[in-house]
């Protein structure tokens, strides 16, 4: 169940250029179930910056009561977050949203897992869970360049892993869709998280496949109350889904990207 908790930072370090891994501990970890869920973090106790920041769960370890988040230092909130040290606490609301459906793919089947940039983190917990279910996983990860690449090795340990970089500084030069086409990857179910153009390209590329996409939208409450994060539903003028509480993961076609 969703709760609010001041979680303690146990580890916090840069893992690539402007990319940080933040490990938190607290009872709240025991509420975290599905890969693809996110938490909403209030970074200071003061009114500026005012809003919570949505960040995906990248690893959930109930044994040690720890969870890990990977984030990019972007604006003021993540910059202030990056200054926090182990021993300090952060105010966490979560877990929020519905994660990736694990039962969409069966043991022995193949899941293609596609991540772009800072959309990669939630896919790691997803992949771990699928591997545990004996699903065959193939990862295609896209980054701007080698310097901002992270978790390649971690993913490689779980299954076949391809990397594309926009500038060609590592792996295939180009986009994740280039890799998928080039390697003629075949799969049963596709899971993806990343920038909207990437998600749109994947949706279009595989109209007849089962595809799950994790979306991002500017949020107010993060829990479904404020109507900030809605997206439209096909064939309706007024129907909508909320990214925070109905998503962030949607089946391709369920909402208009």
């Amino acid at each position, binding site marked *: 169940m969703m709760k609010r908790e001041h979680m303690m930072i146990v580890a916090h370090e840069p893992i690539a250029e402007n990319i940080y891994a933040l490990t938190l501990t607290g009872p709240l970890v025991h509420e975290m179930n599905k890969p693809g869920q996110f938490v909403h973090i209030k970074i200071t106790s003061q009114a500026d910056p005012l809003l919570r920041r949505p960040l995906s769960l990248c690893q959930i370890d109930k044994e040690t009561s720890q969870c890990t988040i990977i984030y990019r230092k972007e604006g003021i909130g993540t910059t202030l977050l990056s200054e926090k040290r182990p021993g300090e606490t952060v105010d966490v609301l979560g877990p929020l949203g519905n994660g990736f459906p694990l039962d969409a793919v069966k043991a022995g089947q193949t899941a293609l897992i596609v991540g772009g940039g800072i959309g990669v983190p939630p896919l790691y917990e997803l992949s771990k869970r699928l591997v545990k279910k004996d699903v065959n996983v193939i990862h295609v990860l896209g980054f701007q360049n080698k310097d901002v690449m992270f978790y390649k090795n971690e993913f490689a340990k779980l299954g076949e892993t391809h990397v594309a970089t926009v500038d060609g500084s590592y792996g295939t030069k180009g986009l994740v869709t280039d890799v998928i086409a080039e390697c003629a990857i075949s799969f049963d179910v596709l899971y993806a998280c990343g920038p909207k153009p990437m998600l749109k390209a994947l949706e279009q590329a595989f109209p007849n496949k089962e595809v799950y996409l994790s979306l991002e939208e500017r949020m107010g409450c993060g829990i479904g109350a*404020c*109507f900030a994060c809605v997206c439209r539903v096909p064939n309706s003028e007024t129907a909508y889904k909320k990214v925070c509480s109905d998503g962030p993961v949607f089946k391709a076609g369920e909402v208009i990207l």
Partner: protein
Amino acid sequence: MNRLAVQLPGLSLKNPIMPASGCFGFGREYAQLYDLSQLGAIMIKATTLEARFGNSTPRVAETPSGMLNAIGLQNPGLQKVMEEELPWLAQFDVPIIANIAGSTMEEYVEVAKEISKAPNVYALELNISCPNVKKGGMAFGTVPEVAAELTKLVKEVSEVPVYVKLSPNVTNVVEMARAIEAAGADGLTMINTLLGMRIDVKTAQPVLANRTGGLSGPAIKPIAIRMIYEVSQAVSIPIIGMGGIQSAEDVIEFFYAGASAVAVGTANFIDPFVCPNIIAELPALLDELGFEHISECTGRSWKKGEPSVYCGA
């Protein structure tokens, strides 16, 4: 004796704390977190005659100690609110204040007439001041004669008391308040959001798809306090105050300014437990300040030397 109970037209509240309209949906999300019967009342999301999708996203943007929103009155429409949301809310022991909006006077009247019949709607709140819709909204909230006319029409059809929500985007809020009081309003709620805007430095384009939006949160608190201070001295109908409330101390400040109850908006997004927390903290704060009953605080900043008299339920 309940030190927090307050009596307002149509509303017998166990405490003066209620979530503000648009910041609490229809209560379903918060009901997963705590028992809504703890609340003094609930101001539900603005209801219009037909369902509305609202504006394109992005609909929110952060500002220093505040946020802009341009939701655009998204709501499921009168019928669904009557058939699904209000009956669902009836499971809680909490009066509902129905926030209503429209593009025309006729729409307001029609919504008011119907929604005021719902058994758990104890008052209406006329949203005449939404800055995020093209038609209606703003004009109703800035021209005294228009606001008065609308108030009169709604009063004629409403089965419950009518509160009118004032816009802060006016030169003379006292003039608006007086016109609305004279037109028969039972109470005022104030303030709605201030019209604001943010522009993205990288793209040079407004952050909100709607370009402008309504500014809420702690940033606007001093403006809300000033307006309530002015209006409460000029009218004799009660005021439900709002604008940046985050704590029990803020609630007292609004009472001192002249409010008789308060609504909490944006703060629900930062701490979803803010309303029950404030309710829990108020008695100790009253002790510290030496008040028996919260009503003693109303207007204390301008009622000079008034003896401390118990005046609650």
